[in-house]
């Protein structure tokens, strides 16, 4: 009996010590993880996640208050990267439904007010005063900031058109 108690006590103490050391050894400063998470986010500060900018979103992620799928413009890629960083399994099925979007300017409505040009966090819109503005699709994240800024509703989001290089087979059974 005594031997059992003693051996279990020793075992418990040893393991506890191990855990304690591990906790110190592998301790990650909370600020560090927030910074790392923020680095994974697009950084366009679009606010679509409902937090004030990407830093706020990273904080919420670190606190476990937001799911890894919080960033709409980031899409699947960002969600996966976040899940890996946080060591959680991501349920990406909800994202599967949402298709990536792209802003597009309807030329007949644009009055060249440059509001969208100023609103875009990634400099994806080009134009000048009283000139029709245009969207660079390589730089647009589909964050919709420009859509809200346009006084004539000339900017809208359209699904990113497939090209021969981006087209992929659909999943079997999901035609």
């Amino acid at each position, binding site marked *: 009996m005594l031997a059992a108690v003693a051996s279990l006590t020793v075992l418990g103490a040893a393991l506890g010590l191990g855990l304690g050391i591990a906790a110190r050894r592998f301790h990650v400063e909370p600020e560090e993880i927030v910074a790392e998470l923020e680095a994974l986010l*697009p950084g366009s500060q679009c606010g679509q996640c409902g937090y004030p900018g990407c830093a706020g979103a990273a904080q919420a992620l670190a606190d476990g208050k937001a799911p890894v799928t919080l960033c709409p413009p980031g*899409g*699947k890629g960002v969600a996966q990267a976040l899940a890996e960083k946080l060591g959680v399994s991501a349920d*990406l099925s909800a994202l599967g439904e949402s298709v990536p979007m792209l802003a597009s300017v309807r030329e007949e409505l644009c009055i060249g007010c440059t509001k969208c040009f100023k609103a875009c966090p990634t400099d994806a819109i080009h134009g000048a005063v009283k000139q029709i503005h245009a969207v660079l699709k390589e730089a647009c994240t589909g964050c919709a900031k420009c859509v809200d800024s346009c006084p004539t509703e000339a900017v809208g989001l359209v699904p990113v058109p497939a090209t021969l290089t981006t087209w*992929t087979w659909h999943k079997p059974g999901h035609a």
Partner: protein
Amino acid sequence: MPAVATLPAWLQRSLIRWGVHPDDHKRPVADLPVERLPLPSRLFLPLQQHVGAPARPVVKIGDHVLKGQLLAESAANISAPVHASTSGRIVDITTYPAPHPSGLEQPVMVLEPDGKDRWIDTAPPADPFALPPTEVGRMVSAAGVVGMGGATFPSAVKLALGLRVQVEILIVNGGECEPYLSCDDRLMRDHAAGVVDGIRLALHAIGAQEARVGIENNKPEAIAAMQQAAAPFPEVRIMPVPAQYPMGSDKQLIQVLTGREVPFDGRAADAGVLVHNVGTCHAIHQAVRLGRPLVERLVTVSGGAVRRPRNVVAPIGATAQALFDYCDGLASAPARVIMGGPMMGNPLATTASPVIKGTSGLLALTQEEVGEGERAGPCIRCASCVSVCPMNLLPLEMAAHIRSDDPDGAFQLGLNDCIGCGCCSYVCPSAIPLSHYFSYAKGALAANERAKLKSESIKKLTTARLERQEREAREKAEAAARRKAEREAAKARAAAQANAATAKAATADVNA
């Protein structure tokens, strides 16, 4: 493992532990004489018929061109030029449905033949073997030759690589293991001398000593013709190999002919070999000996829905519909139209799509031949898929990961090594579309990769914008501060002047 092809025939079969034997459906088409497609009224020449960058047009709408004239030049290191398939007028440069399962459009040049089919003047060298190897490579590059087995990789780039890394053996792929296809078979029977000459030119271009030509033993006539043509050239060895799908896949053929394994994620050149298809070798022969660019090719038009299946020589740019029409049209609405072979080819979204340099076959298959419609059942873990996979993968495990939205899990299991041969789907008793899962997952992984690259570049843009805004704000503030300082200095000066003036006035007053 030894080079299976050097062993006696009865041993070969038992040493190959992968692959399947689908019904080959090659005859009688393979035994019928080749016919030539009359010039269609329009040719649609895609600027991209190859792996790499699209070609850049060098002619304008309205230009009259001769057969073999350069229409679009190679636009990058990995790219290939496009030439006029006949003489005529360029009537448009536009977009047109690509020969691709999506049916999306791609840039094409539209050529209206003038019916004269007049060649450009060519000045082929008297003895190409006297030329330096790089010069032969340059001629192949200028002729727009690409891998004609379907891979469409620019051939000259491969030759240059072979010369640079000093490969020892040129593997010539005459396997043609896909069912239905017999264009390579026909080419070897009818033009064996040209093919062998092309092989010798390719050997010269890469500086290798030996060529091994792998031909499946279900093509005895082609083997005989090639053996006869190669008899005077001991460096060209014709090696019959067992008919086993996918023998015509590069990695498998290399292993059977040389016993060498291409390292995972490696190129054939890493194993000291280079692979060219027999059609490509023939195109090299035409390019170097006759100075003729690649403007036409042999296409097998077959499948249960085709009334008069045939091997047809077609100009690049003729529509699939024109070839079917030439073969007396389709007897029934096909369940699927495929460009290439039934196992690895691409289903076509529309028969308006043109024949390109890599088009080996056009198949119109009936519902019966496609043999689908059975619903996929659950996996019974029979491991048939594992035993046939030529890449030693675990198709059932990979598919399970992909089904549960975990393409990365499949990637860990070697998804990228999957050559998409379809053997696993072919044998699966539960009719699970395994290779379809793999195509889907490869696409999904590539899309993820693109998304990652994009989000990185976007982050750069955002930071650049923030920096710019900060800089602008700072400059504004600095400018404002400068102006303020200037204003104050001016004020101070004015005040000083005023002071001086009053002081002067005061002294004047005093003096007065």
